[in-house]
């Protein structure tokens, strides 16, 4: 019996190694056969290092990461303030929902990226346009989740507050807000992903710096190593952002139970 279990455990642990190994093998084989299409791992590594000596667009890889991150976090901050306000107003005031909510529902279905041409006509192609676009990207999840979070507050909790003769503002501060916090944070996590997506797209469409710009540069200059450097960096940064968002969730809402 024991032996069977041991063998099973060994196989399970080898599988991840096998699949990553397969992936890398395919990469190496394909890129060596078509170096003009896909850069080999060696080329990618060399290029990344070379960027420290020969910066692209005036910056090395970390400079570009920082530029993209700056845009994301500024926009995220604005989206948080606007979104939470909007969501709260819509959830708490029926009049607010009928007025602001109607206008919000008009704007909501239009994907953030569809706004790019309009925003560039209004604000040009500078930093402001990008921040506005990324903020628009983060607005939807935060507003919707704040609204839902307040609406689904357990009525029992509110009743307890009423029994204890809490004032409206106390009800709001001490019961409704904490109860809707998990939902708001979930919205924050989604918004982070969305903002990342929009920042990359916005940078691809017209920027002088940032990860999206790096990729566009690679395409324009037909420079596969840069493209892959950009993509791998995007993957790593994306994973780090997810981890960061989960971390924020754990700190602000320690009482949530997670699945995995």
């Amino acid at each position, binding site marked *: 019996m024991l032996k069977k279990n041991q063998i099973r455990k060994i*196989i*399970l*642990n080898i*599988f*991840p190694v*096998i*699949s*990553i190994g397969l*992936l890398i093998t395919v990469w190496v084989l394909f890129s060596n056969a078509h170096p003009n*299409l*896909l850069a080999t791992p060696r080329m990618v590594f060399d290029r990344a290092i070379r960027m420290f000596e020969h910066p692209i667009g005036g910056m090395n890889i970390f400079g570009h990461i920082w530029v993209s991150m700056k845009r994301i976090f500024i926009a995220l901050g604005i989206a948080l303030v606007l979104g939470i306000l909007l969501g709260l107003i819509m959830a708490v005031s*029926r*009049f607010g*929902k*009928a*007025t602001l*909510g*109607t*206008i919000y529902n*008009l704007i*909501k*279905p*239009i*994907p*953030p*990226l*569809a*706004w*790019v*041409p*309009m925003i*560039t*006509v*209004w604000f040009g192609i500078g930093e402001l346009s990008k921040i506005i676009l990324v903020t628009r990207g983060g607005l939807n999840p935060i507003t919707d989740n704040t609204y839902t979070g307040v609406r689904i507050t357990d009525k029992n909790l509110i009743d307890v507050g009423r029994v204890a003769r809490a004032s409206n503002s106390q009800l709001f501060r001490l019961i409704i807000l904490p109860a809707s916090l998990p939902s708001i944070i979930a919205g924050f996590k989604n918004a982070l*992903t969305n903002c*990342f*997506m929009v920042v*990359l*797209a916005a940078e*691809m*469409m017209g920027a002088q710096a940032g990860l*999206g710009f790096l*990729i566009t540069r*690679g*395409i324009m200059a037909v420079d*596969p190593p840069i*493209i892959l450097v*950009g*993509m791998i960096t*995007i*993957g*790593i*940064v*994306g*994973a780090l*952002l*997810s981890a960061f968002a989960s971390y924020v969730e754990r700190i602000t809402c320690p009482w949530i139970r997670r*699945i*995995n």
Partner: protein
Amino acid sequence: MEKATVQSSNVDLINQKKKKQFNYTLVSIITLILFFVVWQLIVQYEIVSSRILASPIDIARAFIEKLTKEGPDGATLQENVWASMKIAMTGYFFGCITGVPIGLLMGWYKPVDRFVRPVFDLIRPIPPVGWIPISLLLLGFGFRAKVLIIFFGTFVPCIINSQTGVLLTPQSLIDVAKTFGAKDFEIFRKVGIPYALPLVFTGLRIALASSWGALVAAEMLAANAGLGNMIVMGRQFVRTDLIILGMVVIGFIGIILVSIFDQIEKFFLKGRI
């Protein structure tokens, strides 16, 4: 005497409630009308130049015009819509067909999870937009490259939600099936998968929104037809009415897709929580 007053005060309450509901709908409608009227006026009276903002009437005119004319971007409105839909639906279809089964299997069979997980964790953080360069490099500037981008955008949420759905199957249900002597695969088919269905549908819905958004991005960056392209062309020819028309149509189709999806979901999930 008492009965009559109680009854009439009940009727009063109901009438009051009806009036309140009616009042709020009225407010929404008035807000909508005000919004469009103000918009029309500020463009008409040149408070905002008509070069940077098109009025609602201009957009309506552009809509009608676009139904027949091929305009600056080389295709009528219907042709653009059809081109966009073709790509989005193809990518969505392939993403779901691969994503959902893989996700379900990953949730039930640990070996599958161990094998697919590492590669998936590498793919997951890259947003659909990030796949554009690779798609363009490998497949050129055509239909297949765009479908590939949509595919990645659909594939990821499908896998995540399907896997979570299966993982959440309560052990008690599985145990009941075991006491009836069902074999592992049968339990998977008859207990795990049905239990995961609601989450699978949520994943499909997220994937739908994601694919429609990714489509817009893909078309703006690398296309010669479709709604995204129409918007970009609108900017190039300084036709703000086309830009806004494109945005409105994109949003409108998004709403329609979601409604259709909700109906399909209701049909499949009849009677479930």
